[in-house]
């Protein structure tokens, strides 16, 4: 607490001074504490958080998973979660003390005064009811529009306001008939239905494609421009940097740093904030390490394996020629997931494949792994045909290529220990199994005590390290990484990306690196393929693609990437709210 205040007091006052001093505070929170369970299972989720917010301003709460940011936000509408105990010295909205509200008064307050857009846009609308019914629900509950016709009209107006096309039609459709972006817009419309003065958006852009992300952020920006106060919760500093006036950085239920957005991003005071900013992979981080604590264990400057320094072009490990893969849809329609994809991957190289959801990039990974045969085209591994071989003949050669998945947990047998999982991954002719496993442990930075743990008992970062250790175990020439860091927090993501970099330098493996995150791909890849709707729309050197895109689609993609708006000195500052695709 004291630490928090020390960091917090000065900038917070500065903010107050900057804002119109005459304007009353819309929201005032002092020493908010939330805990779950009792007795031995007691866990404090929020440990004394204080902040205030004025009309028309935007506050961002930033932190990694478990930081207590979502619980803090949900406490503001009196729904911190089941089994939660809430205490606050002060919790006031527009001068009204919220800590004394009855259940009934809370219900009248929610939705009317504070609109809340929950995390998980894709599952926050009832899948059994039309979208319009969800938006009309708030109107009906608060008696804002009595007749059915009036509500239907208001719903259409709201959907139009948030930019959903064909609002009359969409209002009558089920959520799953809407695209991800439309669903998120509809959710925002539902939150705005009663014209609340404060809108809280919890991770409003997670799980959305970058171009959609940019549109949703633009919509929130518009909303604020209409005079609403906004609280934006995110794990992604870049996302909030464009819009926030003030920022709270949270870790383990405490505010570690607070201040005006410009200051936080240009001159972070707290070490944790600095680490978070440094951990964001992007063009600027290429060739450098993301996690400061992990110094490189190997001499990464050894140029022997770097394809760009080699005299002759190194051998081709993997070649894909005109791959086509079609799937039958539910009503027997044919969907072409991969449509004529060709590429080459040379030894010591990292080839990035970037694309939005549905672009076919994961199907390419499955074809390369020969989990499924291509309908047309061929995959050649180390100069030999690979994709159309019978599985029995392929098995011996599978040790040359391995895979790391997005969700490591499901890729481990839940009954097996870490040691057994790695033992199973070693080739049968491995002479010193015990020594090799110890070697793998050292490689991914595991201590011996983890050997007897089961996957469920590991943290997310540890699981992904184990997946990498397993992938490395048979000494492959090539590792396919399918969204390996998408499910991880920024700081863990940084460690895993650093580890992949180290392994490449030490072992000379090559990567086929698949991700939707342009920053991650730019950070790690030598060359990049951009995929859209099953086709490669552009390919080339990573810097070429991301700094000088030629194709319209890539240009739009790159423009939509959220960047830290307030860059540290030395970078050209990006104007706020630029790069949005409306």
């Amino acid at each position, binding site marked *: 607490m004291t630490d928090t205040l020390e960091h917090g007091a000065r900038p917070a006052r500065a903010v107050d001074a900057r804002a119109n001093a005459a304007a009353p505070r819309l929201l005032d929170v002092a020493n908010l504490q939330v805990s779950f369970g009792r007795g031995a299972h007691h866990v404090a989720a929020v440990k004394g958080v204080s902040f205030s917010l004025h009309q028309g301003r935007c506050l961002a709460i930033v932190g990694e998973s478990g930081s207590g940011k979502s619980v803090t936000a949900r406490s503001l509408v009196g*729904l911190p979660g089941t089994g939660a105990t809430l205490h606050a010295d002060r919790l006031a909205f527009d001068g009204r003390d919220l800590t004394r509200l009855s259940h009934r008064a809370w219900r009248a307050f929610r939705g009317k005064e504070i609109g*809340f857009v929950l995390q998980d846009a894709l599952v*926050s*609308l009832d899948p059994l009811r039309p979208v319009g019914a*969800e938006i009309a*629900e708030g109107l009906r*509950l608060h008696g804002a529009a009595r007749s059915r016709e009036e509500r239907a009209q208001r719903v259409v107006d709201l959907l139009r306001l948030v930019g959903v096309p064909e609002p009359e*039609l969409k209002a009558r459709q089920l959520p799953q008939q809407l695209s991800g972006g439309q669903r998120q817009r509809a959710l925002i419309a539902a939150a705005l239905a009663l014209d609340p003065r404060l809108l809280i958006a919890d991770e409003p852009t997670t799980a959305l494609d970058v171009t959609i992300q940019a549109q949703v952020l633009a919509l929130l920006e518009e909303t604020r421009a209409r005079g609403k106060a906004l609280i934006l919760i995110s794990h992604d500093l870049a996302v909030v940097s464009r819009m926030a006036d003030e920022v709270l950085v949270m870790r383990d239920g405490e505010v570690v740093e607070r201040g005006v957005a410009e200051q936080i991003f240009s001159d972070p005071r707290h070490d944790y904030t600095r680490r978070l900013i440094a951990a964001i992979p992007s063009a600027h981080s290429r060739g450098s390490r993301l996690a400061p604590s992990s110094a490189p264990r190997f001499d990464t400057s050894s140029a022997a394996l770097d394809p760009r320094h080699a005299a002759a072009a190194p051998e081709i490990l993997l070649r894909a020629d005109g791959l086509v893969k079609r799937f039958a849809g539910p009503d027997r329609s044919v969907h072409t997931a991969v449509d004529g994809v060709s590429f080459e991957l040379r030894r010591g190289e990292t080839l990035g494949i970037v694309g939005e959801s549905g672009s076919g990039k994961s199907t390419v990974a499955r074809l390369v792994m020969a989990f499924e045969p291509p309908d047309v085209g061929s995959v050649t591994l180390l100069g030999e045909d690979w994709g159309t071989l019978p599985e029995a003949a392929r098995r011996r050669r599978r040790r040359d290529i391995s895979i790391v998945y997005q969700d490591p947990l499901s890729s481990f047998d839940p009954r097996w220990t870490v040691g057994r999982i790695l033992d199973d991954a070693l080739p049968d002719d491995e002479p010193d199994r015990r020594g090799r496993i110890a070697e793998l442990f050292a490689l991914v930075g595991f201590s011996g005590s983890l050997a007897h743990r089961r996957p469920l008992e590991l943290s997310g970062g540890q699981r992904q390290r184990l997946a990498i250790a397993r992938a490395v175990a048979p000494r492959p020439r090539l590792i396919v990484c399918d969204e390996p860091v998408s499910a991880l927090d920024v700081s863990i993501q940084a460690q895993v990306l650093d580890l992949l970099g180290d392994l490449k330098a030490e072992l000379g493996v090559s990567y086929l690196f698949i991700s939707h995150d342009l920053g991650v791909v730019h950070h790690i890849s030598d060359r990049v393929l951009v995929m859209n709707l099953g086709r490669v729309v552009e390919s080339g050197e990573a810097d070429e693609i991301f700094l000088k895109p030629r194709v319209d689609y890539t240009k739009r993609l790159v423009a939509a990437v959220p960047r830290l708006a307030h860059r540290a000195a030395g970078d050209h500052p990006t104007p706020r709210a630029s790069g949005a695709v409306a």
Partner: protein
Amino acid sequence: MSAAGRSALAPGPVVIWRRWLGPTVRRLLGAIAVFWAVASFTFCIQALLPGDRAELILNVAAGTFTQPTAAELAKVNAKYGFDAPLVVQYLRYLGGLVQGDLGASYQSHRPVLHIIAEQVPPTIGLTLSALLLGWIIAIVLTVPTAGRHDPLSRAVASFQVAAAVAPPYWIGSILLVVLAVKLRLVPVEGGSGLSGVALPALALAIPLSGFIGQVIREEFARVLDQPFVISARMRGMSDLGVRLLHVLRHAVLPGITLSGWALGALFSGAAVIETVFARPGLGGLLVAATSARDVPLVTGIIVASAGMYIIANLLVDIAYPIIDPRIKAS
């Protein structure tokens, strides 16, 4: 709403065929195939009957266990067509089935179909009222208690586990003893009126409610944590409102898929319950026919109830998209 919106939605004939009519026809054909298999299966069991069928028929009819003469046996074999090759018997059997002819009872020599037709209405009445009652009890007990851990909710959950285990005949006996014998609230021998059907239906409904209740409860607790439910609460909806308006519909879905199956269990339970309460119905008929080893009647009843089961499941399948519109939409 708007005309433009509707015309955009209006599906062409191909789409209607693909989305609705096609699957329905396919299901119908599937159901017919299953029914044919059921009939063949029962025929096989009859044909594999140990011992001589003609001897059995004579004994069943006479109520004795004597060794009939060869002439007597030949007469019976000729009458029932047992002397024909199995294939011919099988085709005759299927042909009869198509025309609604299930053969004649060994005991009364009346057509099986007529005997069954007399006993079907009380059984259907009993099973349907039990199904309805079971659902009502399950929902009333589950909606306010699911996802909660207070003593009352735990007690209700435990009751549902116990109820699902309890056999209907036992509950029936207790209800009979307590309500009819001790309290004299209802007559011991069930009449055909409401009070006559109430006790047997309740005896069937309680185990069923325990079963459905457990299924709903699990789904209910899962859905309660879904973001769309929390979203509704964030809009100012009350806990009970959320449970009734959002969660219940989801939680009921797995229960409905199981209701077709539950009908089979109810038929089984009805057989026992009709015996307990001395009610007319298919169950009592089947039990009597079984102990008399009146094979045509037994197989007839089984084929008929399998047919009803298949029809019920077909209806559930076809009606399911109404409750879960996702199926239509996807």
